[in-house]
């Protein structure tokens, strides 16, 4: 493993399900800082007046969504622990709903993140969803970076893997962009679907995997 500036960067893959889906991104940062401090691993701290562990997340998850593929980077001062030991120690100090799945050396830079795959349980019928997806364009209002809103056609960005009818509605498996240039949040899709159906469609969202710009699994 490579060492630069006196620390090793570890990338942790973890799931966030059940009660943990109500932990906001800001709160997750605080929660994970304490998880790492409890875990008894050789944490690297920032220098300066207010020293703290350095942690960063690849792609913030919306409040209420679940995920099987969150990525968090943090730094260790040495490589005395195996990746398996790191995972075990972190899991021993995780709250309900958060679970470490894998630790490895960080390879891709976070700016290379390109896409995210989701499974969405929707309260509309499979027919409604298919009709919605078959539209020529799907225009949504999106917050512009410089304030105000802009209209965006998300149709070209939808990479639909499957549509399936379920007991309470339907299930959509879809890959959406989440890069520096363009991000389509599942909530955008749901609000466009609600407008299409003329009623509020509820969605429970599970993020399945993150990919880089070449659609390789983000590692």
């Amino acid at each position, binding site marked *: 493993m490579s060492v630069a500036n006196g620390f090793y960067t570890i990338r942790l893959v973890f799931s966030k399900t059940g*009660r943990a889906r109500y932990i906001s991104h800001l709160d997750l940062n605080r929660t994970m800082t304490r998880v790492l401090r409890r875990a008894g691993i050789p944490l690297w701290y920032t220098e300066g007046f207010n020293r703290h562990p350095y942690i960063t997340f690849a792609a913030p998850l919306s409040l209420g969504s679940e995920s099987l593929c969150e990525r968090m980077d943090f730094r260790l001062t040495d490589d005395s622990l195996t990746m398996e030991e790191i995972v075990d120690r972190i899991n021993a100090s995780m709250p309900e709903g958060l679970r470490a799945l894998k630790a490895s050396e960080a390879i891709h830079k976070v700016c290379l993140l390109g896409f995210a795959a989701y499974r969405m349980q929707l309260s509309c019928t499979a027919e409604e969803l298919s009709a919605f997806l078959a539209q020529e364009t799907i225009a949504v209002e999106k917050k512009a970076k410089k304030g105000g809103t802009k209209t965006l056609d998300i149709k070209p960005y939808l990479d639909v893997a499957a549509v399936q009818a379920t007991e309470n509605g339907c299930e959509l498996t879809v890959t959406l962009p989440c890069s520096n240039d363009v991000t389509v949040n599942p909530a955008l899709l749901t609000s466009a679907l609600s407008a299409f159906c003329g009623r509020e469609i509820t969605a429970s969202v599970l993020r399945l995997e993150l990919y880089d710009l070449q659609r390789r699994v983000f590692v």
Partner: protein
Amino acid sequence: MANPDELFLKVQKPSRYTGGELNSVMKDKTAVDVRFAFCFPDLYEVGMSHLGMKILYGLFNHQPWLWCERVFAPDTDMEALMRENHIPLWGLESRDPLSAFDFIGFTLQYEMSFTAILNMLDLAGLPIRSADRDESHPIVVAGGPCACNPEPIADFVDLFFLGEGEEVDLEVLELYREMKRAGCYTKAEFLRRAAQIEGVYVPSLYEVTYNEDGTIGAVTPKDGAPSVVRKRIIRDLDHCYYPDYFVVPFSDIVFDRAQSEIFRGCIRGCRFCQAGFIYRPVREKSPEVINKQSHDLCASTGYEEFSLSSLSTSDYTRLEELLPRLLEWSEKEHTNISLPSLRVDGFSEELAARLNVLRRAGLTFAPEAGTQRLRDAINKNVTEEEIFRTTGKAFSAGWSAVKLYFMLGLPTETLEDVAGIAHLGQKIVNSFYQNPDRPKGKGVTISISCSCFVPKPFTPFQWEPQDTAEQLAEKQQHLRDNVTTKKISLSTHDNKVSFIEAVLARGDRRLCAVLEEVWRGGSRLDAWSEYFDYDRWMKAFAQCGLDPAFYANRRRPYEEVLPWDHLDYGVTKEFLIRENKKAYAAQTTLNCRQQCQGCGAACWKEGVCVERR
């Protein structure tokens, strides 16, 4: 029944309601005998900061037969959704409705939380009055500082714990468990037997009669209840349970850190301060125990900061011994020590530097009064010399902001004392500019915060009238008129809230009707200014035929039967009368370590009362 889950995404800060935080305790409900819902009658971020709750949560859950869960007051957005969807208030751990519990326990930290208690009982689907609850309902209990005069909520709570809860709470819960097991449980019989336990006050077993002038005639016990109920204390803090874990919240709470209690009680005896009297006698923990408990807590929570908790950190006799021990591991583990209510002077240079004492303590003083005469009258032993010594050091070290806390409306206060607050601020401003080492290119800012004095039970000022709203307004204006520099920023408290607080603090049982009325009118989280509605309170007093000024603004004679006279907190009335008279003579009283004043707390023969001097 709908599931609370469906509401979480529709409210602000859902993680206040979800539970599942690290270290929260899950048990098999079929494997425990007693379930206890520990309720803090305020929002999650306030209640989760409270040390007493963490201690009792740990202690209760340490018992295999008992499961204690946490409950907080929902914010108004959540309450509206709960009522709309008929979802009763639930325990955070099991998510079971409160009606499924054996006990519902409230902690009484401040009077303005009383309406939240009624609202939480109602949200739980329970009748709010004890008399309307039967064997099918949980027993409603309460404890905490405001239990020293519980009369304004006596009709809503079945049983009060007086004093420290670690022993008496479990004794009551065990009695309940035994009676259930023996099949002889009835609510009435349970309460009758619980009243025999020291530290337990069952208000329904006491009848209150009133004189024609509205004062209390007599409080008469029945069914064998004791005529005076004495509070409980823990004799040996070193061997008393202390949690080695805290529940670690996801969201930001008011005090988001580990806390180690270092002693209980206070030697000072400031005459306005209820905590200084009701927690007597002072009992310390040893440095070894504090050190271990602090380290264990930090390890199990991952907190990056812990604070030493007490009424006055500097009065801990072994601070110089304790701090180096704590620093030994905390520096290594990047954990900060926070030392609240610390006097900055009196530290060795080396320790002061390692602790970064100035950074931690900040420059905050609570002189409480503007002149030495009034400080003597209230027995607050902060002197101007001490303030200037500390600010002088701090200004030389680059500091330029000072915070000062005062009270308006203290007994014997004159307009001269009020102006003295502004003058003290001005003197600090002047001392800054006279200091040759002051930070260059920076102005000084003095923040003065003035609250309104509220007379409290079991203090030497328990007989004193509170200033009327007009008097307080006049003093606030006089203070503003005397501040002549923009270097001083002045903030004053809403005297209307303080007025209601004063009514409730020294109120009697007749106020239960007012509380019910004002809650039915929509009052909930009165501790939050945005929810406090003064007019609704005044309407409720009128509706119930009670004059709030009778409780707040009347001087009570020493002979009057006070609503809390049948409760015993160790300090005697004779002592409090002595202290009251000394206040009017502007005489100070030595602290407990300098000389015993015979307050009455020596009856326990513990702590400072038996220390060798």
